[in-house]
């Protein structure tokens, strides 16, 4: 009763699965950009604004870091329609990923802001730099260099996270793998193929991020 691998049964679905990988890429890219924007606003609020104003950002981070992403998306997808707000599957998952990533990236970016030493800010002030000039020439170059590797890792994690979208009817890589599995029942072959696709997605992303890091910040990052 040995199981015999039959790659021929799933190979016709190769391009179908690759199309799903593109949807996963789209979700992870847009979700990350959204999360980055949220994280930047929050981290700025936490770092630069007085304590009271930072409290909202703090509450946001605590809430989203301590509840599972799946539950958050369930709330957006099935909870909000009960209040009359019907959001499409792709948008709902995208909002969920962006909100969740926003919380993680807030912490990362806040760490980056904190890495700029007080003395350097004083020095900038002594040189007569404006607030904008200080931000542009002193703070941002250091923050970017400090947080870039962490952001790259976070992006890779988002790529994996997109597999959750299959639960909400989005035909991305995992969802399509499930569909092929249901048609062929070749679970080992289908999910191996999907795994290889995910590895491809993340290796290409890692390589591009490493190249960009080297060009922009002279960072030496490992791809594998």
């Amino acid at each position, binding site marked *: 009763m040995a199981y015999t691998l039959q790659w021929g049964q799933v190979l016709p679905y190769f391009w179908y699965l690759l199309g799903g990988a593109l949807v996963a890429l789209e979700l992870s890219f847009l979700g990350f950009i959204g999360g980055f924007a949220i994280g930047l606003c929050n981290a700025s609020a936490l770092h630069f604004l007085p304590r009271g104003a930072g409290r909202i950002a703090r509450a946001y981070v605590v809430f989203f870091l301590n509840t599972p992403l799946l539950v958050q998306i369930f709330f957006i997808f099935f909870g909000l329609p009960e209040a009359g707000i019907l959001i499409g599957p792709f948008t709902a998952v995208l909002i969920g990923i962006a909100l969740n990533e926003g919380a993680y990236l807030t912490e990362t970016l806040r760490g980056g802001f904190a890495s700029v030493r007080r003395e350097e800010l004083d020095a900038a002030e002594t040189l007569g730099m404006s607030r904008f000039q200080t931000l542009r020439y002193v703070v941002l170059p250091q923050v970017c260099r400090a947080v870039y590797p962490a952001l790259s890792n976070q992006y890779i994690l988002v790529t994996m996270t997109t597999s959750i979208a299959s639960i909400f009817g989005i035909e991305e890589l995992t969802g399509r793998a*499930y569909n092929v599995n249901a048609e062929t029942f070749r679970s080992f072959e289908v999910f191996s193929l999907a795994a290889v696709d995910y590895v491809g997605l993340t290796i290409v992303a890692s390589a591009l991020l490493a190249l960009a890091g080297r060009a922009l910040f002279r960072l030496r990052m490992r791809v*594998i």
Partner: protein
Amino acid sequence: MIRRRLSLLLTPLVLALLLLGTAPPANAASLDEILKAGEIRVGVNPTLPPRAQYDDQNAITGFEPELAAALAKKLGVKLTLVPVGSPDRVPFVAANRIDIVMGAMSRTSDRAKVIDFTVPVHSENYGIITRDDTGITKMADLDRDGVTLVQVRGTVMIPVLQKLAPKAHMLLLDNYEDRDRAIAQGRAMASVDGIDTANFRLNKQFGATKWKLIATPELGVTWSCLGIAKGNTTLRDYLNVALYELHTDGTVEALWEKWFGRPMDTKVPVTPWF
């Protein structure tokens, strides 16, 4: 350097695939082994009431658990129920985590390439599940732009609908509760699936929605069987005889009426030849 790291990453993957290719992942338990172990493991899907569901004590009850209990009683072994879902039920059998899979296992030639089926346990009757306000009355109403159908991933009606209603948009969700909720909330207009259980479930869970069930005999009747590991003939032969007995003494029909609240729409033609 890169090449060495790449090989570090790919070696386990290749090794895993080689292992899968050479060694069987698991051997299914034969009839003798089940009798010797004194236990039979049956996979049921507790998200498909009244086929199977969790009761107040968190035990799995329903049509399938009681039928499984009748089979275990004939075998004289202890019954262990294992909850399985629609997409993972067949891998559970293939990996020898269960001996028998239930959960409305429709018999198809594609599936029979991977697992074996016993004689039919019951018929499955299909129809359109929709809300009263959608204006849908027949299959032809589904093949239109602007119609969103919702189906459960990995179920048997998906390829049928892709042929019959190519213009409709299809949303695939993970389980039947999500499917029903999507129709109730207006995310989708209709679903084509088994209607045997629909009445029981929908009015209980979404009583506020006005549901409409439209039988579609033109889609044919499928036969739901017990699924077992490919080549496990000792178990299959035994189960065929046991099911023949349970059909002829009326146990199957009695359990059906007890749990579904009405007779089986299409009776299983029982024959002593199989």
